[in-house]
């Protein structure tokens, strides 16, 4: 893959665009189609594309395994943490209304955090699965 200058340059241009688009999908999900699941998948697709063109070794340097593994669990913890926080604030589990003075604002915060948790988990899980499939049977990694 080292001589494929066209693919490398194109990937270098496309990958940041995909990452930016994933963030747009994530944070615009309240107003249009989108949300945590889609954003997580698109975000991971950017890294998978990078790995397909530049190789797994360089991708590991950009995004080490422990980071994605941590992401996969951190998202679920964030989700559950929002639920616990709403319990601590005096509501029911995942009752976001109590997170702020105005129940509507509380719902906004809750949805934002929960969707962020979903995105982080889905991103971590997809990249982890890809890493394990791609690294299988290769001694040099």
């Amino acid at each position, binding site marked *: 893959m080292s001589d494929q200058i066209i693919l490398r340059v194109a990937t270098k241009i496309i990958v940041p665009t995909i990452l930016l688009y994933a963030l747009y999908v994530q944070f615009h999900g309240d107003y249009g*189609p989108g949300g945590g699941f889609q954003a997580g998948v698109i975000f991971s697709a950017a890294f998978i594309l990078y790995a397909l063109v530049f190789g797994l070794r360089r991708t590991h340097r950009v995004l080490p395994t422990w980071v994605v*593994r941590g992401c996969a669990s951190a998202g679920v913890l964030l989700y559950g943490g929002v639920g616990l926080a709403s319990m601590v604030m005096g509501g029911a589990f995942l009752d976001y209304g109590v997170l702020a003075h105005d129940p509507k604002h509380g719902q906004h915060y809750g949805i934002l955090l929960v969707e962020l948790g979903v995105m982080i988990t889905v991103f971590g899980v997809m990249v982890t699965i890809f890493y394990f499939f791609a690294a299988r049977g290769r001694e040099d990694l």
Partner: protein
Amino acid sequence: MGVLVDFALLAFLATTAIAVVRTTNLFAAVMLAGIYSLLTAGLFTVMDAVDVAFTEAAVGAGISTVLMLATLAFVGSRVKTPQLRITDISAKVPVRRPVFPLVVVLVTGAILIWGTGDMPAYGDPANPIHHHVAPRYLEESEHEIGVPNVVTSVLASYRGFDTFGETTVVFTAAVGVMILLSAMRRKDRFGEERWGEESVPDLFRGFAPTFWLGQDGRMRAPPSQPGEEDEGGTP
């Protein structure tokens, strides 16, 4: 107009599905599955499910295809047919004509199609599903949640428990893949190749499974000491 697009997409879908059945090359089958997913995404758009279409296009045509291709890199893309023997066992295990499955499928399909006679017509506003909880979501979401995209508000707020469960399932799937694929063939410090329990991801080291998969894929008891390579090693 929408009906025409709907019909065309469904016809494409049926054709692609038949092509997946007929092809004997797994590589082609995986690519056809990607096309199938993309057509499904188009169909979801026609059916007003833009969020779902988005997800299907990203997941089905993107990630899923990549994972399938990664698998094919290990298992090869050829399928055993009456003409093509792959391994030396293939010559001894004959390929049978699947007649019985065809009968089962035809009977099941006929019964299901008979059952559609009682279904409400496609797109009918009087469909019972539209008179249960959905109207409440659509009417109250604006006052209660204040998010224009009702799918997001239902996903994250009204049915937050559901999504929490699904997120956990996704995470669990990653754990499963890690455990299945982390048993790397690697050299131990005595220079012997073996499938090592040391490759269980560090994340699980604390509660490492009490079994490990030996080279022949059967479950074994873990070697009692890391030093006793001869007992726990490769057969």
